[in-house]
């Protein structure tokens, strides 16, 4: 038992080691090749610099990665996050909008609905999107990829209908604070991520949710036999993922001061999955690390910024990202083989089967 614990601990160390290593490599590269990359300065009490910029830009992706980690840990996948992001952005932008009014001859923009109401509605709709995914996948047992494919296809259409095919520009200034405001010298969105991450970590570490999640991700059938309410947990994962996408949508809308249902969050689901994979999580579910995914999101954003900064055409980012994933997967599959071999040595029962698997 003790050796097992030691091995587990080593594996957990391992999981965070690789994402951090990748981040370090990228940052070291940036340090040498991009002038003033680590330069930080304080302008009007706000901290500015490439590093802050990366963290700030990565916040929507971090939210998506947190939600995606839970879904992937449960053995599923959520490819609808980009569309949910677009829906949430569209709703919040449309509800806030900003009507021009003149007060004493000075022009003001007033929100159509109170900002909190708009955000609340957008988040509720996002959670409903997540619940819909949960209904298909957890309740009806549809393949996760196909189940979320429905919302991926429909969601963008729904977002387009909400904004009636237009790009909605927001004029109401307090709304911009979410995506581009500063609090105590740092971008406000960083605090949002930190708070949300804290909440999720509490949920995972201090309640049984994390354990249950790991259990159903590793083996759904046996978890059910143990008496876990598998459906409810999966449902929760998809709802959280929807919520994350909703928050990300609001941040994006606030950052660009508009909602573009056509282009908001296109392909971001892939970046989210990439972040999760980069975070050392297994796509097969089970053991997971939310922190790892957040670091993964940072790696993705650093990579993007680096590629922009060194003046390579931005489309190359896609090639680099893909190659990075392939390499990571190759490493993972090598390690997987080793673990299989190790178990084969210890358990005589399934030896034949596992070696066959390892060979294949």
């Amino acid at each position: 038992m003790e050796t097992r614990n030691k091995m587990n601990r080593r594996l957990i160390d391992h999981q965070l080691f690789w994402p951090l290593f990748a981040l370090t490599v990228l940052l070291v590269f940036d340090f040498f090749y991009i002038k003033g990359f680590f330069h930080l300065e304080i302008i009007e009490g706000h901290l500015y610099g490439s590093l802050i910029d990366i963290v700030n830009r990565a916040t929507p992706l971090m939210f998506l990665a947190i939600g995606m980690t839970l879904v992937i840990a449960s053995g599923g996948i959520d490819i609808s996050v980009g569309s949910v992001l677009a829906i949430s952005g569209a709703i919040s932008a449309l509800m806030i909008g900003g009507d021009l009014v003149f007060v004493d001859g000075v022009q003001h923009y007033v929100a159509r609905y109170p900002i909190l109401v708009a955000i609340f509605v957008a988040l509720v709709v996002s959670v409903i999107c997540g619940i819909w995914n949960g209904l298909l996948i957890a309740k009806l047992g549809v393949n996760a990829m196909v189940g979320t494919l429905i919302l991926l296809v429909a969601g963008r259409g729904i977002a387009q209908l909400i904004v009636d095919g237009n790009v909605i520009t927001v004029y109401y200034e307090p709304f911009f604070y979410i995506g581009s405001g500063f609090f105590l010298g740092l971008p406000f969105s960083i605090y949002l991520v930190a708070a949300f991450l804290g909440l999720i970590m509490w949920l995972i570490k201090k309640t049984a949710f994390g354990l249950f999640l790991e259990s159903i991700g590793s083996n759904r059938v046996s978890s059910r036999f143990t008496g876990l309410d598998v459906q409810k947990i999966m449902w929760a994962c998809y709802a959280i993922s929807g919520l994350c996408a909703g928050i990300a949508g609001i941040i994006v809308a606030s950052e660009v001061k508009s909602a573009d249902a056509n282009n908001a969050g296109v392909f971001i689901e892939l970046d989210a999955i990439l972040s999760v994979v980069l975070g050392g999580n297994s796509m097969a579910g089970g053991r997971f690390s939310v922190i790892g995914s957040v670091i993964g999101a940072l790696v993705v954003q650093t990579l993007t910024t680096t590629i922009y900064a060194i003046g390579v055409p931005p489309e190359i980012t896609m090639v680099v990202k893909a190659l990075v994933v392939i390499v990571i997967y190759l490493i993972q599959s090598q390690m997987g083989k080793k673990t299989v071999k190790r178990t084969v040595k210890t358990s005589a029962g399934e030896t034949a089967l596992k070696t066959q698997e390892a060979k294949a």
Partner: protein
Amino acid sequence: MKNLQINSKFIPLLITIALFVVLFAAGSVSYRGFFSMQVVLNLLVDNSFLIIVALSQAMIIILGGIDLSCGALIALSSMVAAYSMSHLNLPPALAILAVLIVCSLFGFVQGWLITYRKFQPFIATLCGMFIARGLCFMINQDTVPITDPFFVSMATMRIKLMPGATISSSVIIALVMLALYIYIAHYTKFGRAIYAVGGNEQSARLMGLPVDRTKVLAYTLSGFTSGIAGIVFCFYMLSAYGLNAMALEMDAIAAAVIGGTLMTGGVGFVIGSVFGVMIEGIMQTLITFQGDLNSWWTRIAVAFLLCVFIVVQRVLVLRREAKKRIRPVEFIE
């Protein structure tokens, strides 16, 4: 009993065909000029590349995998074809050959990663998609026109079937691919192996089927087919751009599922994909004929259909599983 089982296998396909007929009938009743041969043929003309990728998508889904790279491969192949002809002055035959080689190579590497390196098909083909899109922009960031006389003549060629009803050369290519796929799926060992692997990989392996070879070959074929679709896409667009055929893979998957291919693998008909594409097309046509609807309703309608079909599939699978449980009792009787 046996008859009933065969029937249940055909149910999704029959629903799809019936739905197509119903949609067409509804359109014919509601809109003047809808009921014509050309409307149906235009579905083929405008969607021939989609039909081709939907065929290979169905095959891959039957195998138990998924191929997300086909849209990006179409963009890449049109880019390779356009660039090699306009900038490298290659003759069209060589350009087409280059396209097919590049796409097959993509498929092969993806298949290899999935089979021998245990990549999830989703991840491997996703990487393929990223790389293909990125390569497009590495080759050229702008729209590259295709002016080659052969391509232009293929693009403008119309074959008259009857007065007032014509099809393009792309349709012929799509139909040839359909015939090829039907032959492969139902009349070759390779096709049977695909169904077997999709049904249950472990038992296919234990039966002594060449599982690994089948998988690699199937993905290579899928890449090759995407190349063909890319060339057809060239005939259709006469230009190449890195963002062409965006999210086409989703349409192809939707078409395959609507066409009755089970996402769990092992069950389906490649011809179903054709009807899946036709249904997607006819909904688009209906919305165009209606005139005052936002074109985004097409996406929502496709998603709705997808949803209905997936739920129907689930019900069918659950029924089959229930049947399986009863079987031992029958055996004793």
